[in-house]
């Protein structure tokens, strides 16, 4: 959309501060100008703010004619009853004493509005006339950081969603040299359908585990099999059990980093020093290998379930380029002799042997593809 422009410097400074310093990852959805005279000066934008494992989209409306004034905000069409300025709040003074030269202002405003939004949604959910829901809320209300969302709309069935943060393990502290800006978080998403008065027994809520994307480096949340939700269970019963179960899995995942490190170290005596290796999570390593005069790179992509699953190998020629000038690569290779019970040095040896044969196939493939061009 009309992104062929820039926001005026004062507004840009505030927006950049928001994008870089907000504890959650805020994204700019679109940006446009409301100016009559300066269509290239962008003074309004839609931001997507993470909320309850989804995003809420708010339009921030500055005025390019007076970039030093406070912005106004237009909330989503579903939130027409959200009025953060109506009660005596910090927001009012934030806006009335607006200092456009302070780049932290927009972030402070959004933070304050989001806090008010959390309260607003909590109040909406509390008003839902559903006995089971009322019971669930009363038993988990003491847990910190729970977010709730009441979805309603003409097409969608009414449902209440919870985002429950799980475990207070500081996973980033358990991994030496961890580059994460924020500790990764795991949430359980619980979805209750409401408003179906005639249902017989209350059905189990829909459950889903969600994690922040950083965690993928050591732990794949999609592979966790959730413990079953038995009839008549409530969240207060389910959660401690699930947390214990998850903590065990995370501890195991962290211990697997060392197994991967030892594997990479075991490759070195055969392949030589790695050209490149991921020193923190040990998920990747690249070695230089040769077969006669044919030299190529071997990329090792090591899955989080290693050693249960073998690393994927990808060969990349140092001598053959395709028509676009990109080095020729093989497909990821995983179908080779492998046993998780082998010692890491044996694993390295068997891969080395496998590659000695595979190198010939790869060389032939490279030569043939180049002849075609």
């Amino acid at each position, binding site marked *: 959309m009309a992104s062929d422009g820039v926001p005026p*410097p004062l507004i840009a400074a505030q927006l950049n501060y928001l994008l870089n310093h907000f504890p959650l990852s805020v994204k700019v959805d679109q940006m446009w100008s409301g100016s009559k005279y300066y269509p290239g000066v962008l003074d309004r934008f839609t931001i997507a703010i993470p909320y309850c494992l989804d995003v809420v989209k708010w339009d921030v409306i500055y005025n390019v004619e007076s970039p030093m004034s406070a912005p106004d905000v237009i909330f989503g069409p579903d939130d027409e*009853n959200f009025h953060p*300025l*109506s009660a005596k709040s910090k927001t009012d003074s934030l806006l*009335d004493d607006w200092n456009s030269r302070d780049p932290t202002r927009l972030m402070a405003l959004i933070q304050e509005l989001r806090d008010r939004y959390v309260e607003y949604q909590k109040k909406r959910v509390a008003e839902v006339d559903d006995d089971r829901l009322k019971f669930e809320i009363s038993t988990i209300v003491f847990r910190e950081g729970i977010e709730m969302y009441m979805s309603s709309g003409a097409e969608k069935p009414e449902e209440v969603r919870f985002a429950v943060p799980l475990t207070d393990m500081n996973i980033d502290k358990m991994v030496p040299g961890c580059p994460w800006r924020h500790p990764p978080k795991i949430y359980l998403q619980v979805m209750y359908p409401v408003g179906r008065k005639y249902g017989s027994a209350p059905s189990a809520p829909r459950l889903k585990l969600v994690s922040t994307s950083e965690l993928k480096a050591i732990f794949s949340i999609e592979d966790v099999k959730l413990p079953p939700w038995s009839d008549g269970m409530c969240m207060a019963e389910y959660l401690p059990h699930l947390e214990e179960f998850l903590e065990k899995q995370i501890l195991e995942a962290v211990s697997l980093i060392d197994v991967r490190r030892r594997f990479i170290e075991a490759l070195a005596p055969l392949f030589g020093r790695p050209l490149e290796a991921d020193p923190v999570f040990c998920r990747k390593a690249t070695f230089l290998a040769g077969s006669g005069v044919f030299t190529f790179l071997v990329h090792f992509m090591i899955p989080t379930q290693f050693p249960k699953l073998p690393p994927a190998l990808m060969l990349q020629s140092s001598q053959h380029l395709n028509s676009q000038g990109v080095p020729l690569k093989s497909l990821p290779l995983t179908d080779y002799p492998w046993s998780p019970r082998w010692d890491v040095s044996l694993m390295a040896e068997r891969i080395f042997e496998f590659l000695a044969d595979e190198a010939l196939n790869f060389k032939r493939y490279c030569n043939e593809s180049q002849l075609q061009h």
Partner: protein
Amino acid sequence: MADTPIDKIAISGPTLASLIQRFSSSSGPLDGLLFGHVSLLSPSTLSDDDPSSSTTTTTTSTSQTRIATVTSFISLPFSSPSGHLLPSFPSSPSPLGWFSARRRSPLRPSMREFSVSQSLSSSSTPLSPCLFLLLASPIHDHAIHTHEYRAYQFSVSSESFGSKSIDIVNIGPGFRGHYGAFSPNSPFPALPCVVGGSVMIEDEKEGEEEELVERRQLDLCAEGFEVRRLRRLMGSGAANYTAELEDLYGKMLAKVESLARQVELSSAKVFEQENLNRKLRHKAARLAGSE
């Protein structure tokens, strides 16, 4: 009375057009107040065309509609960024509500707009009804110049906006009710209506104080031509006075023309100055940001 819901909002075509014109010619967003009156309309079935309908006119009083008619507006900022009323907010005359016009933004009340309506309806002299007219233009549309508007009544009891339909008042059978409910609203005092010369003379002699005040006001409007003299237009000496009156009209027209010329010139100057201010502000904002 504090929260009487109105059924409809009416605005005359020229008022709406002038509001849209004010908005589209302004460089930035606009706020302002709406003035007018609330009336109860009884739909009239009187018709010139259909004589048979005259028999049914007596049964209409049951379906009265409460209608708020916007007759004028003034564009001025009157609230803070958080929607509180500024100390300079005029206490009289009491407005019907307010409007907000912002370019290229969603046609939904914003955070501040809700707060302004709330402030207006809960101030020391609460507005009733508290209307809100929102004007916007679409975000994406570049090729076609579109104006969108939507009207709301702010409900104090439920603290929410209720969407209302807008009637653009025009001429025709559909708008007959407006004529029935018309009440003149003008700073020009009423001319004492008297019939027959004898009363006039008595009137002259009596010279009641109340009338004197009114007459002085009228004279002020006529600027140097006493209203009393209008009387001489009737009767035997009328011919002489006609020339005098024509002369007066001529002078008035000349005056109006020179006034119009002055307004034109000063508007051009204001526009020039506004342009200059805008450029300076733009420059200042750039400098402030690049420091």
